[in-house]
């Protein structure tokens, strides 16, 4: 009898915990993705990226970033045009992002007068030498990982993401803390196969822009050697109606002056 009672108690506990995690994790991930990567139909911002190496030396790169959603939560286009330092000014990236598939990426180097396609494949390569990966800027495909709820408090959910294809990434898993109010991912910690936290991304400044909570400053840290990068947005605007033809090969060679600060 006693055993039965215990079993019953255990079963009911199990039920409670199941109902607690009945929070729809997939829904949180989806909403967070929309909030972080897809606000507005399009957007424009002037970005400056501070790259600090392990010796503490600072480099800064400035660029304009234009974005246009083709489908919320789906395909997007990006145009990134560098303005500083002067010797890389007008270097331009164009991206047709296809979540779940391979992105199309182009690069124009004015100094070499060279337009190159960048082979699809690994998205976890450095973004222009910073601690950020290409994927950190363009947004990681939410279907690439399995998510589970780790914890929850009044203000945030903390999820654990385990990659579906472990061979394609350098991490074993990461945790991400999503703010309940803004739905923005505020802190991501990446762990290696030894369970060591070696990389961190954090939203250090959030501001409301036209009703969209926007991460104005984001930091990516290499916890192994102390190097880090900060990506800061200025003059962010949404729904500015950037024409589709701005996101074309022509813009690579001839940056659209109306939209890009050089």
């Amino acid at each position, binding site marked *: 009898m006693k055993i039965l009672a215990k079993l019953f108690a255990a079963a009911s506990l199990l039920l409670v915990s199941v109902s607690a995690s009945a929070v729809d994790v997939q829904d949180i991930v989806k909403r967070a993705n929309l909030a972080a990567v897809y606000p507005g139909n399009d957007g424009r911002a002037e970005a*400056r990226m*501070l790259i600090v*190496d*392990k*010796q503490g*030396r*600072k*480099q*800064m790169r*400035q660029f304009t970033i234009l974005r246009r959603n083709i489908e919320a939560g789906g395909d997007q286009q990006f145009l990134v045009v*560098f303005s*500083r*330092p*002067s*010797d*890389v000014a007008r*270097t331009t990236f164009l991206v047709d992002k296809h979540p779940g598939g391979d992105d199309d990426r182009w*690069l124009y*180097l*004015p*100094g*070499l007068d*060279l*337009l*190159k*396609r*960048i*082979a699809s*494949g*690994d998205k*976890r*390569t*450095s*973004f*222009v*030498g*910073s601690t950020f990966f*290409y994927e950190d800027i363009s947004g990681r495909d939410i279907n690439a990982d399995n998510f589970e709820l780790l914890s929850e408090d009044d203000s945030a959910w903390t999820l654990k993401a385990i990659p579906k294809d472990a*061979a394609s990434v350098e991490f074993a898993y990461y945790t991400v803390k999503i703010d309940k109010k803004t739905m923005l991912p505020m802190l991501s910690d990446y762990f290696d196969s*030894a369970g060591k936290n070696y990389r961190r991304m954090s939203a250090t400044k959030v501001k409301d822009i036209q009703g969209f909570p926007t991460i104005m400053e984001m930091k990516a840290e*290499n916890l*192994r*050697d102390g*190097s880090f990068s*900060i990506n*800061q947005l*200025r*003059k962010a605007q949404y729904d500015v109606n950037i024409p589709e033809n701005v996101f074309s090969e022509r813009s690579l060679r001839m940056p659209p002056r109306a939209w890009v600060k050089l």
Partner: protein
Amino acid sequence: MKHKIMEWAVEHPRSIFWLTGILCLVALAFMPRITVDTDPENMLPHSNPARVLHEEVKQRFGLSDMVVVGIVNEQGVYNPTTLGKLHKLSEEALKIEGVIADDLMSLSLSDNITQGGPGEISFHWMMRQPPANQAEAEQISAWVERLPLLNNTLVSGDKKAVGMYIPIVAKDQSYRVYQELLAVIDGFEPGDEQFHITGLPVAEDTFGVEMFKQMAISAPAAGLLIFVMMLFFFRSAALVTAPMIVAMATVIITMGAMIGMGFPVHIMSSMIPIFLMPIAVVDSVHILSEFNDHYRPGKDKKALARGTIDELFQPMLFTSITSIVGFASLNTADIPPVRVFGSFVAFGIAVAFLLSITFVPAYMSCLSDETLDKMSKRVHSGEKPNSFLARLLRTLPGFTGAARSLIILVGALGLGFSAWGISKIVINDNPMNWFEEKHPIRYADKVLNQHFAGTYEAYLSFNSEAGSADGVEQKAKAILASAPAEVQQQWQTISQSPATMADAIVEQQMTASDETLDYWDQLADVADEAGAAGRLFLQPEYLRYLESVQQALMDSGYVGKTNGLVDLLKTVNRELRSGEATDYRLPTSAEASAQAILAFQGSHRPADVWHFVTPDYGSSVVWMQLKSGDNQDMNLVLDYMQDWFAKNPAPEGLTVDWSGLTYINVVWQDAMVSGMLKSLISSFVIVALMMMFLFRSVVWGLIAMLPLTLTISLIYGLIGVTGKNYDMPVAVLSALTLGMSIDFAIHFIDRCRYMVEKHGGWAKGLDAVFEEPGRAIGRNAIVIALGFSPLLIAPLVPYQTVGIFLASIMVISCVTTLLLLPSIIGLLRNYLFKQADA
């Protein structure tokens, strides 16, 4: 005064024992505070300019000391099994504490830049997963061959060896990392692969570890052998325990004092016990020899002990002082570990002397009559000692008289031969060669350098003087004219310190309000423009100069391979353009170079470029791979390039500097060679002056210097003739040679003058000299020469060298003292003794 001390010692043996015991205990109490420093770099003071620069260059380019791992497969390394093991080993290496994961160089962590589809460039991992089949392995082979930075660095040209370079946070971690790697390798299934681990950091750190093991084996082994030899001569375990205690107490007190005073035990100072033991034993053997020869049952042992010390006090004092001078003279070298070594050996000699004149007589006078009587019976069958040694020595007065001219002639010829040998001395060192040839690290070094372009690193760095701030102020004024007051004020502060200006402006650019941001961006442009003059290593002219430097290094024939910014730029340029060999060339403008680097930084390892150039492009470094770490070979490169730079000076405003461990070893060896030579000459002169002073005669002083001169000359002459390198241990041993080879001469001359006077004639006096004093010298030579023979089988070459030196010093100085001195003194006897009489 000396009488009082000895009197007191003999009368109060217990106090002496207690004092010695307490001193030893105090010294032992300090031992746990031991700190160990096995880094040969510390041969140079931290403030040495070459060393400061070496550290600064490492910091500037994020260069680390590397553990080199090589996997050799004679069937070729491009197969799934071998590459699989490499992959696994790399993964495990990343987990080892102290390894700088982000900089680890291995195929599995290398990025590959290739042509994708038409007009497409691709960055992908070279070997993220081990190849699944032979075709994939072949693909990796093809990729590597296209990447000059990897080819012949990570995979050998013959494709039979594949390497890993494991950067570590500090050199003193390398032994542990080495052991952990070995443990991983042990877990692999046996196959065609041989694993080799080497590199200067591993060699240096491992040497330190093995050195201490050696110390724990060699010193006691030598001690035991010395004990056995003395037992053979003196036939009393109780009696010969005295010198053993003296030697041990000397070593313990000296090492305790050194550790207690906070000096780390360095490679040099680890040898102090080995140096002090023979010196400490020598004095005691003289005393024991004398005591043993004179003791007969019924004799007053206290009086005999006093008498023995009384007779030997002067020569022992002289020999101790000369040895002290010899070692103290090492202080003239600007090499901190050598100074510590010299000072504490000198200190130890003083301790040994004091113990010899107090502890030994106290000990002897405490022995029971029974023990001494037994000893006496065993030793003296007849009235006179009649051992083989004694009989041999008795023939010498006659022989040196008859063959006087021949002996002197042979001595002179020996000096001539030595001069010729010394002229052929090769000054060379390489910490790798401190291991025996069959040692795994040295063997690995040999094998890997047969396959690869070289496992020894040296760096040639080029630095531009900071860009001028001229004109910045002028242009800034125009911008600031319309700026808000706060910007003007902040600029005022920032522009005060040009060194931090760039960073301070960046700080403002990141934090300024949207309203003031534009001003800061413009000010940044102005500062950037001025600084652009400093962004030299984007400019084709400077890159072409680097290219010519690398070409010259290769042309020298002494360098296995060079890696530099130029190679990286050419590779990226090729892949950006067409992938064809014709595009393997430098970009044609500064912008093109900057953008090629930006493109490269879209890879997995963007920071790799900063190992070749600083982010402000003001400084660049060329890495050299050398097949040999011999200073001689590094010097060939240095000499060749000195000529080359004279003909092809660097563009205006560039400074050129050498660094890297292989180079640093040259610097400290130069300091060592010149330092040792200086100290040898100065102590030679001082000892000569002391001899003249002690014997109150210029001629006697010069005669006393003869055995020493011949010993040093012959030893170094033989080094030259046999082609053995004049290296760190050989250099330091000159002090020991000087300190020890004068000993016998002092004893001989002192006793000779005394005996001739006592017996009232040359012939009788000389006969007497070849009794007790002669036997003491002979016994000493045999005890020390053979006693240190365990060093010869040590796996570390410097220990072997010490063993050979000690034997050579003893044999040569003993033979020259016993043959050459009586010949010369005999030749000059009328002059010498008349003078002495007067």
